C-alpha cells in the first residue's frame, strides 16, 4: 500500500465518521423543529438535547479534521477547490456558525425556547448538507473550467445538473434516515416509548427515499462520468452488501426488535457504500485535473503526518470511549435522571 492510499483512506474514514455524526446532529435539529411545528415538541426535545449537548463540539472537529487533513496530504486541492469553492464553502461556514452558536446560546446559556430559533436551527440542518454535498458532484468533473491557469466554477452547469441535485436529495434523505434510526435506538434506551414510536415512524418514512436516491445517483453517473460508472459496476458486490444491510435495518425497525443492532447495520450499510464509492473514485480527487498521485505532498511530510495521526488516535480513542461511556451508555444520564451540567 502506498502512502497516497493510506493518506486518502484516513481522510475518507474521517469524512465517513463526520457524515454519520453530523447526520445525527443535523437530522435531530430538523426533527426537533418539525415536532415543534406539529406541537409534539415535548416528546422529542429532552431526548435530543441530552444526546447532543456533550457531543456537538466533537462533531464539528471531525469536519475540521477532514479539511485540514486533505490540505496536509494533498496541498494542490487547496488550489483547485479553494479557488472555486469560495461561495458554497462560505455559506456552509455561516450555517455551521449559526448551528454551533445556537446550541450554546439557546440551550445552554439563555434557555431561549423561541420557535423562530428552533425553526432556524432545524432548517440550517437541512441547508448544510445541501451546501456541502455539491462538492461530491464537482469532484466528478465537468463543473470546474480553466481560465488560463486559473480554475473557476461553472455555476450554470452545476445548477442545471441532475447529478448535483440527485446528490443534494440523497444527502437530505440520508441525513433524516440516519438520524431517525439513531434516535429510535437512543429513545428506546431511555425507555421513552412515545419518542421511540415517533422516531421509528420517521425512520420508516425516510428509508425508501434514501435508497431510491442512492440508486438514482449511480444512474446519473452513467451519463456524467462513464469511466467512474464502469468502476462502480466492478464493485457491484459492495453495493449489494450495502443493500442487504439496509434491508436488515428496515426489518428490525419494522418488527420493533433490537434497535441497537439496527443502527449498527445502518452504519455498515453506509460504510460499505461510502467506501465502494470512494474506491471507484480512485485515483481522482478532481476529475480530470487532480489525482491522488500528482497532488500528494512530499514523502517526509506524509510520513510525519501519518505518525502524528497514529499518535493522535492513541490519545483520541480512549477519550472518545470515555465520552461514550459517560453519555451514550450511561443509563441514568440517557434516561435524564440526573442533569449535572455546570
Amino acid at each position, binding site marked *: 500500500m502506498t502512502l497516497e492510499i493510506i493518506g486518502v483512506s484516513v481522510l475518507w474514514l474521517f469524512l465517513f465518521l463526520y457524515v454519520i455524526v453530523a447526520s445525527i446532529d443535523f437530522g435531530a435539529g430538523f426533527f426537533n423543529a418539525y415536532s415543534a411545528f406539529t406541537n409534539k415538541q415535548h416528546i422529542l426535545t429532552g431526548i435530543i438535547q441530552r444526546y447532543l*449537548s*456533550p457531543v456537538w*463540539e466533537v462533531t*464539528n*472537529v471531525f*469536519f*475540521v479534521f477532514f*479539511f*485540514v*487533513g486533505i*490540505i*496536509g*496530504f494533498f*496541498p494542490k*486541492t*487547496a488550489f*483547485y*477547490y*479553494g*479557488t*472555486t469553492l*469560495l*461561495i458554497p*464553502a*462560505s*455559506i456552509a*461556514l*455561516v450555517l*455551521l*456558525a*449559526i448551528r*454551533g*452558536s445556537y*446550541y*450554546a*446560546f439557546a440551550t*445552554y*446559556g*439563555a434557555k431561549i425556547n423561541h420557535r423562530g430559533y428552533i425553526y432556524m436551527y432545524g432548517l440550517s440542518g437541512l441547508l448544510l448538507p445541501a451546501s456541502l454535498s455539491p462538492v461530491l458532484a464537482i469532484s466528478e468533473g465537468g463543473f470546474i473550467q480553466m481560465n488560463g491557469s*486559473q480554475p*473557476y466554477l461553472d455555476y450554470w452547469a452545476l445548477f442545471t445538473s441532475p447529478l448535483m441535485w440527485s446528490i443534494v436529495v440523497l444527502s437530505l434523505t440520508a441525513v433524516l434516515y440516519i438520524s431517525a434510526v439513531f434516535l429510535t435506538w437512543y429513545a428506546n434506551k431511555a425507555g421513552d416509548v412515545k419518542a421511540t414510536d415517533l422516531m421509528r415512524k420517521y425512520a420508516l418514512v425516510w428509508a425508501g427515499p434514501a435508497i431510491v436516491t442512492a440508486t438514482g445517483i449511480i444512474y446519473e453517473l452513467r451519463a456524467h462520468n462513464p469511466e467512474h460508472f464502469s468502476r462502480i459496476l466492478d464493485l457491484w458486490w459492495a453495493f449489494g452488501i450495502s443493500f442487504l444491510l439496509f434491508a436488515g435495518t428496515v426489518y428490525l425497525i419494522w418488527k420493533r426488535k433490537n434497535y441497537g443492532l439496527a443502527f449498527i447495520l445502518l452504519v455498515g450499510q453506509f460504510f460499505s457504500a461510502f467506501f465502494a464509492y470512494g474506491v471507484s473514485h480512485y485515483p481522482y480527487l478532481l476529475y480530470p485535473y487532480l489525482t491522488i498521485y500528482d497532488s500528494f*505532498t*512530499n514523502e*517526509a*511530510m506524509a510520513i*510525519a*503526518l501519518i505518525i*502524528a*495521526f497514529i499518535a*493522535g488516535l492513541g*490519545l*483520541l480513542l480512549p*477519550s472518545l470511549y*470515555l*465520552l461514550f461511556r*459517560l*453519555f451514550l451508555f450511561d443509563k441514568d444520564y440517557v434516561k435524564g435522571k440526573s442533569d*449535572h*451540567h*455546570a
Partner: protein
Amino acid sequence: MGFEDTVLLSRILTLLTLSFHILYATIGVGVPLMIMIAQWVGIKKNDDHYILLARRWARGFVITVAVGVVTGTAIGLQLSLLWPNFMQLAGNVIALPLFMEVFAFFFEAIFLGIYLYTWDRFEDQRKHFLLLIPVALGAAASSVFITIVNAFMNAPQGFDILNGEFVNVSPLLAMFSPAVPTKVAHVMATAFMTSAFVLASIAALRLVQGSNHIYHKKALLLTMKLGFVFAVATALIGDLSGKYLAEYQPEKLAAAEWHFETEGDAELILFGVLDGEEPKYAIKIPYALSILAHGDPTAEVIGLNEFPEDERPPLWIHYLFDTMVTIGMWLAFFSFVYLVAEWRRWQFITKKWFRWLTVAGGPLALIAIEAGWWFTEVGRQPWILRGYMRTSEAATTSDQVDLMIILFAGLYFILGVGTIVVLWRMYKRNPVEKELADRQKAEKGGDLE
C-alpha cells in the same frame, strides 16, 4: 474587479475573521487555566466559594468556546479559500502543526464536554478536577501549534526551493523555526494575562454595582494576583521578542520604532506622529532601543533604509506597537499597585474610581491583544512567507470576495451581540447571591434546579 482589489479584499476578510476570532481564542486558551486554579484553590482551602467561582466561569466559558469554535472553523477554511496559492505551497511544509492542532482541539472538545456535564456526578471534587487538566492542556497545545504555523510564516525554514517547488522538506525543522520560542511564549502569557484581567473586570463590575459579597472579593484578589504574574511574564518575554526581531526580522522592529538609519546608541521612540522621516511630539528614551534589540546600550540597530522600499512594512505599525506596550506596562503596574495596597490594607482600592479602573483592565487587555496581532501581521508585509512569497501572489483569483466580506461581517455582528446578550442574561438572572441561597436550600433537602 482587478486582481489588486481581490488581494486587498482577501486581506480585509482575513483581518476581519482573525480579529474577531482572537478575542474568543484568547479567552479560550486562558480561562480553562483560571477555572482549574479556582477549583484547585477551592479543594485545597475547602472553600465552596472558589468551587462556585470555577462553576460560574465554566458556564460563561461555554458561550465563548462555542463562538471560538465556529470562528476558528471559519478561519481554518478561509485560509484555503482566500489564499489557495499560499496553502498549496506552504501545505507541503507546514501541514504537520496544523494537523496536530486539530488533534489538540479534539482532545479539548471531548474533555470539555465531559467536564461540563459531570458536575456533581462525582462524589469527590478532585476527580472532577482531573478532567480540567486535559481541557487546559488541549487549549494550550492548540494555541502552541497554531502559533508555530504563524511563526513559520515569519521565519520560514526546513525546505529548499527548486523551480518554484519545495524540495528536501523537513517537517520538524519547519516546526521549530527561530520565531517559535518567543512567539509561543508571548501568545501563552498574554492569553493567561488577558483572561485573568477579563475575569477581574467582571468581579470588579459586580462590586461597583453595589454587591458587597465576599465571593466577588475573593474572585478579584485571585484574578489580580494571576494577572500580575502573567503581566510580568509578558513584559519579560516581550523584551526577548524585541531581541528576536532585531536578529531575524529587523525591518519589522525598525518600522515599529521609526528607526531609519543603521546606528548605535539607538533611542526608543514612544508615541508621536511622523512628519516625513521626523517623529514629532515623541518621547525619546536614549539607548533603550539598543537595549531592547541587543541588551547593550551602544549596540548597532539595523535601520529601515537598509531595505528596498517595496520590502518595507507600513510605518503606522508604530502606533500598534505603542498601544500594545503601553497597555501591557499599565496593567503590570496597576495590578502591582492593587496587590501592594491589598497587602498594606490601603483603602483607596475599594473606592469606586479605582474599581472602575479595574473594570477597564479586561477590555484594555483585549485591545492590546488586537494591537499586538495587527502589529505582528502587518509588520511582515509585503510578505506572506517572509523572503519567499508576497501576499499579492498568494490570494485567490475569485472575484466574489467582496460579497463574502458582507456575509461574514453580518455573521460576526450577530455572534458578537449574541455573546454579550446571552452572557448578560445568564448572570443577571442568576446572581451569585441567589445561587448560593439555592444551594444552601438544596443541601437541607429538596432538589437543585
